[in-house]
């Protein structure tokens, strides 16, 4: 159970990461806004609490693996990585610029603290499953490392996703923990309109996964879900995280039109002002 102090610390950290995300997107003049803001609390929870990692040694062999499948929310991941100490905050200003390590979608070869390149949707979970199976091959039941994979709701429309889900169920990869960013938006509208996923929990259950649903902005609920997932012995776990796209910025929240756009200067100023005001209340 997270202490009040820890929750406060994570909340404050997430607020700073959201501010950095807005600044990144403003300078980049393109990129995705709603998804990164919606997943910031979960990014923060992992990089500032749950993950076994060391920002000073990104290639540390014993680290947990974190695979971002929906690469388009990388402005949020980059901001989190910078705040965690993987690279200077200053570098965030290079997002999407020529020669930058911070590509529009993550490029593993240039930025080694991301575990894979992603962007084309639907293939991250299979890669994470391959990582989890690799550990099972090497260590069997004594494998202690966890492989975490973040996927989006929209990318569950990809067939490759379900191939990976079926595969992880077959091999009982209990060292694989997947988090779905269930914000119900995609480029052209609401996921529930474009191509509905429900009954989503039942789908995963029928593929032999352990399923937990949480409020994706409740640190204690997220922590309890992850702890429960770690205790599952013969199944992979999916945490369906109900998130609010654009979280923390009033005019972006729940508006699918912010899926793939950056704020302009005026909008960014408002967003930062709102976030700073919220920070004062933490």
């Amino acid at each position, binding site marked *: 159970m997270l202490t009040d102090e820890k929750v406060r610390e994570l909340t404050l950290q997430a607020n700073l990461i959201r501010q950095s995300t807005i600044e990144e997107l403003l300078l980049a003049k393109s990129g995705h806004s709603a998804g990164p803001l919606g997943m910031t609390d979960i990014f923060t929870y992992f990089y500032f609490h749950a993950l076994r990692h060391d920002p000073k040694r990104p290639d540390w062999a014993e680290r947990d693996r974190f695979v971002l499948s929906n690469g388009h929310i990388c402005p949020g991941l980059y901001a989190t990585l910078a705040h965690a100490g993987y690279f200077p905050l200053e570098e965030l200003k290079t997002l999407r610029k020529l020669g930058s390590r911070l590509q529009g979608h993550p490029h593993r*070869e240039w930025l080694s603290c991301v575990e894979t390149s992603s962007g084309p949707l639907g293939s991250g979970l*299979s890669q994470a499953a391959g990582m989890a199976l690799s550990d099972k*091959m090497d260590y069997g039941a004594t494998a202690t490392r966890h492989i975490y994979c973040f996927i989006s709701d929209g990318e569950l429309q990809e067939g*490759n996703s379900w191939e990976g889900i079926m595969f992880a169920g077959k091999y009982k990869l209990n060292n694989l923990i997947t988090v779905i960013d269930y914000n119900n938006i995609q480029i052209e509208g609401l996921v529930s309109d474009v191509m509905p996923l429900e009954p989503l929990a039942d789908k995963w259950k029928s593929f032999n996964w352990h399923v937990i649903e949480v409020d994706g902005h409740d640190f204690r609920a997220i922590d309890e879900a992850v702890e429960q997932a770690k205790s599952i012995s013969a199944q992979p776990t999916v945490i369906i995280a109900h998130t609010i796209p654009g979280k923390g910025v009033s005019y972006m929240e729940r508006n699918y039109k912010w899926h793939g756009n950056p704020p302009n200067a005026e909008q960014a100023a408002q967003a930062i002002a709102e976030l700073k005001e919220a920070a004062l209340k933490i």
Partner: protein
Amino acid sequence: MLNPNLKLNPKIWNDDVEMLPIRHGFGEGLLKAAETDESIVGICADLTESTKMNLFADKFPKRFVQVGVAEQNLVTVASGMAAMGKFPFVSSYAMFSPGRNWEQIRTTICYNDVPVVVAGSHAGISVGPDGGTHQALEDIALMRVLPNMIVLTPCDAIEARKATLAIAKLRKPAYIRLAREKSPVITTEETPFEIGKAQVLFETDGLAHVGVIACGALVHGAMRAAQKLEKEGIRVKVMNIGTIKPLDVNAIVALAKETKSLVTVEEHQIAGGLGSAVAECLASTVPTPMEFVGMKDKYGESGSPAELVEHFGMGTTAIIEAIRRAVDRKQK
């Protein structure tokens, strides 16, 4: 005449020449490589026996992964395993891998630059009765456009084994193209093999009139064509391209300079395959008239392998005609 330096199969012209499917060499090579490299894993999409990965799977069941009929998962699971230090070899039919999972190969293997070997069996028209849906005639094009990817096209089962062992040592992203049907064994254990090196298998006494550049199972037909024309006084050199990428530019340029007229031969669409690769190479070095033997922007159909190779203009007769055209163009 056969290049004496390469120690080719002396029975190559005989009716009782050994016939083996090229895919067998892959299976044997993988098994042998895995005996010394414990990081090698095998992953298959429900075609373990047809792709000869069963040799590996039977010996190393704990290092074998069955993904079922799911080629996108096949290569992405492989990418994840490679990221953890494994060296995955994945096999299916070329039509499905890389036919169906090209983007996953591009992003998760090549863009990530992780060592995964994609073995595409049942490539070419010689798949036979299964018909056009199963005859991969586009896979060389799909794979050779990818940065970081090595593309291997062995001409017989022995070369396929050597190519598999060589790529296992190199530990890079690679595609190895295999055929289903039995084809004549051209090389021997003593024939040298090196990734990126082309070899002139059929030599001439004096400068050649035409050079033939071939890959895969059709290399034998190309050699047969050269042997027949030798009797008419038309001197033809036949080069085997075991590696389409990286292409042996020096060897191809040397052959083009000598013959000033070339024919390429492949079981693949003319667009984008070996012929295109050679043309790209020569257009920027020594522009040379070329004739292309391959699939002419069509799909295949059911039939026996030999029938189909003839029907679609890739048999010995068609190669001889192409060589004659190449001679004519040179004289003009």
